[in-house]
């Protein structure tokens, strides 16, 4: 735990940082919550197509008030709008896309990430379980998984851990971890995570102090 109060990056900063990972021509699936904000920070110099697992490919921004259509929603059940590229498929075809490795990047939230790339984001034993939704499919199928999360829990417990304490969403699936304090990445799924960037005002020691996972230093 860090003695002094270190805030690091805001939610918007996390989203903006994740957006920098996107490349021209990418097909991208954004999870619910902070990951949804990523779409606000995509560079105008690149063209990215957003996919939503309920079967919409080519998500536009939230609709104007008078254009809301209850039949046009994203996987977070939010009303969205269409683009000229938009198409719809069934859920089976949508997850065929995901499972078959046709989506380049998924940005997801997490409760815990482990140093071996394990991810937990769907249940807390003892609490009512709402179900995995599409998260297990996304981490199993999308080519690159970027996780956005707070570096520590509200009680200060590290969330980037040696092993996940919570039931897993997927094993060895995380490629990049962006927390409010730092960015960790690994070359491939056989490699360890390496600390790549620090939030302003955050030192390597700060990060080390509130991380349980082993990681390399760039």
């Amino acid at each position, binding site marked *: 735990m860090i003695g002094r109060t270190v805030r690091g990056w805001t939610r918007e900063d996390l989203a903006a940082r994740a957006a920098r990972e996107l490349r021209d021509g990418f097909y991208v699936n954004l999870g619910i919550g902070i990951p949804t904000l990523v779409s606000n920070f995509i560079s105008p110099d690149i063209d990215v197509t957003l996919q939503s697992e*309920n079967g919409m490919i080519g998500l536009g921004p939230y609709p104007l008030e008078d254009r809301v259509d209850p039949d046009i*929603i994203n996987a977070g059940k939010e*009303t969205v709008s269409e683009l000229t590229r938009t198409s719809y498929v069934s859920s089976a075809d949508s997850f065929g896309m*995901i499972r078959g490795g046709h989506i380049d990047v998924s940005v997801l939230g997490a409760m815990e990430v482990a140093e071996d790339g394990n991810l937990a984001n769907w249940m807390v034993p003892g609490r009512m379980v*709402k179900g995995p939704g599409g998260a297990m*499919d996304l981490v199993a199928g999308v080519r690159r998984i970027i996780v956005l999360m707070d570096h520590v829990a509200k009680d200060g417990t590290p969330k980037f851990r040696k092993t996940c304490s919570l039931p897993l969403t997927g094993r060895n699936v995380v490629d990049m971890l962006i927390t409010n304090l730092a960015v960790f990445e690994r070359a491939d799924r056989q490699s360890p995570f390496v600390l790549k960037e620090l939030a302003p005002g955050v030192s390597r020691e700060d990060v080390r102090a509130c991380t349980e996972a082993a990681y390399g230093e760039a």
Partner: protein
Amino acid sequence: MAEKIFDDARSALAGLLFDGMTIAAGGFGLCGIPETLIDALVEAGVGNLTIISNNAGVDNFGLGKLLRTHQVKKMISSYVGENREFERQYLAGELEIEFCPQGTLAERIRAGGAGIPGFYTRTGVGTLIAEGKELKEFEGESFVLERGLVADLAIVKARRGDRYGNLQFHKSARNFNPMVATCGRATVAEVEELVPDGWFDPDAVHTPGVFVQRLILATSNEKRIERRTVRQEEA
């Protein structure tokens, strides 16, 4: 010709319902759900149901209506948030749930409709979802065997239908409906609009009539929005 169009939901379901049956329902959240047929199931009072549906509706809408009346014994779903009555019944042990990752659920329903009793997927390997299921290695990687799902009755919502049972869905209200339409021993569709013969472009039919035994004009098209998000007019 064998008449597929029925006068109302009650007559369309007549003879197809029995206690303890399995019903698959289309829809994602409250989007593309067969509202009219769900109401008719509540009215029919058929009980002890196993429901295959991605979600469980909300407290007073969608499949939540069938939960409120305690007609459901078990749900096979990927996500059941947004439903307090569900939570209460589950914690009280009144309701069983089989969680299934969303893509696996979609594929299981498709497989059931397509005569495929099982398939392998990477999804869920190494998690609670794979516990008790067979694993198999393909090229050194582990996959879990998931089973096809069939239902005694499938209920779907479509934008348009014709008297042959051909269906067209509307935008993201398509979601689970096309697979669900294939997995029922009997399939009943409700449509927002009945169109005349030949109205459909044959290239633009989503579900061919072979999958639909009965259809009705939907009388409930409330289409409740779960999260109304809007933007302001750009300057």
